[in-house]
């Protein structure tokens, strides 16, 4: 009995490792994409705005699962092939990047016009205005939104199991196939491990929210 459990541990840990890998990589690319698309949608060039809008609407308007399937199963027919991990990270980043770009855009738009005007009056360049005046203020407004999206993203990672990636969910399902009698224990373990992975994100998000509501950050 104990032995069965001990035999399960490496599989679950392996799965957890992959889940964390997908999570961290996706978080990084999500926020890079968020800034590119969020700023792009505010560009003074119409073409850039249009491209960003199309991207954002497509990825917010379709399900993450369908996006995963497209990138992993469909694109190879067009000669574009990714490993399951790469496909998972790309799909997650593009999907959550679309949501996060709206957080970026909203925060930037919420900075009073007077800030930009004061920066113009001091003869700062458009780039300096953005980097020194607008983004430092907007970033604080973005943080609570980023915290919540990061938790959402964390939960979304379980979908990568459906493109054959051996993440935590995938490993649990595999273990269960050979140990049906232990279904409950396996899924208790799954729940606990996911929660442990999510915990730092949850704490961080709460903390950011509290600071934002105190108006300090």
């Amino acid at each position, binding site marked *: 009995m104990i032995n069965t459990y001990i035999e399960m541990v490496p599989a679950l840990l392996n799965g957890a490792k992959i889940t964390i890998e997908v999570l961290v990589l996706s978080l990084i690319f999500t926020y890079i994409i968020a800034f590119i698309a969020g700023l792009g949608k505010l560009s003074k060039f119409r073409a850039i705005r249009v491209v960003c809008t199309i991207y954002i609407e497509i990825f917010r308007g379709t399900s993450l699962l369908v996006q995963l399937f497209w990138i992993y199963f469909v694109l190879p027919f067009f000669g574009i092939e990714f490993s399951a991990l790469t496909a998972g990270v790309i799909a997650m980043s593009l999907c959550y990047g679309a949501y996060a770009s709206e957080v970026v855009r909203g925060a930037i738009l919420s900075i*009073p016009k*007077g*800030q930009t*005007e*004061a920066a*113009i*009056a*001091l*003869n*700062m*360049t*458009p780039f*300096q205005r953005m980097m*020194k*005046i607008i983004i*430092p*203020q907007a970033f*604080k407004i973005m943080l609570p939104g980023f915290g919540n999206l990061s938790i959402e993203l964390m939960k979304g990672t379980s979908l990568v199991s459906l493109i054959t990636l051996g993440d935590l969910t995938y490993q649990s399902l595999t273990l269960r196939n050979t140990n049906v009698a232990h279904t409950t224990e396996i899924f208790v373990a799954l729940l606990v491990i996911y929660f442990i992975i999510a915990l730092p994100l949850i704490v961080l998000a709460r903390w950011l929210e509290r600071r934002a509501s105190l108006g300090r950050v």
Partner: protein
Amino acid sequence: MLAVRTEEFIGKNAVETANPLVAYKKVSKAFGEVKVIRDLDFNVSPGEKVAIIGPSGSGKTTLIRLLMTLEEPTSGVIEINGEPLWHKEVKGKLVKADEKHLHKMRGQIGMVFQQFNLFPHMTVLRNCTEAPVNVLGMSRKEAEERAKAMLAKVGLENKLDSYPAQLSGGQQQRVAIARALVMRPKVMLFDEPTSALDPELVGEVLDVIREIAEEGEMAMILVTHEMEFAKDVADRIVFTDGGKIVEQGDPKEIFENPKSERLQSFLKRMRS
């Protein structure tokens, strides 16, 4: 009759207006269908202090925002030292200027806003050094020295490390004045710098502006509702109504002997 008055005025100051620092030439500004500035001709000489008065909505703010490049004229040309602000000469033709040209021209202009618009995420000192370092390319040390001198001038040398939110409105506006002065503009624009302040804080800000005005060199365009102050500080008063300059001249003349009916009724309303 109004035209005659303007002629008279220019005649009197012929020497100064020969080479104006700022010149509006037939400038108009419309927001959609609404014409806010109409065919405006308006000059400011180097070092001259001009106060702009007029009823709400007469276009005073818009007039100076055009000069700060915060609003683009619908037609007409604004010149600084004879060089077009919003335009560039390409093969003898005036075309719309690019950001690079605006950047070059803007260095000569500074502005103090009604709502202060300090950068809330920076200390008082940082508010005053950010532009000198990034725009003028000064070293941080050099910029801090200059900023400290300006902050001392406005009486805030002991607030260097405070954040704007920790200051009173009057103190914030004085920081904003120091921040603009650090850039050493040739002309400084003030848009009702005291109208967002509690009455008891108005005096400290006016005193600072008065002191700067007395130093001379820098031209100033002051939009204000403080009539006594305008009379004190300004070399010339400009009265706007309906997007036009209706009357302008020597402060004493304007206040004691207004010619146009609109100025007369405006002054009556201000006094009551």
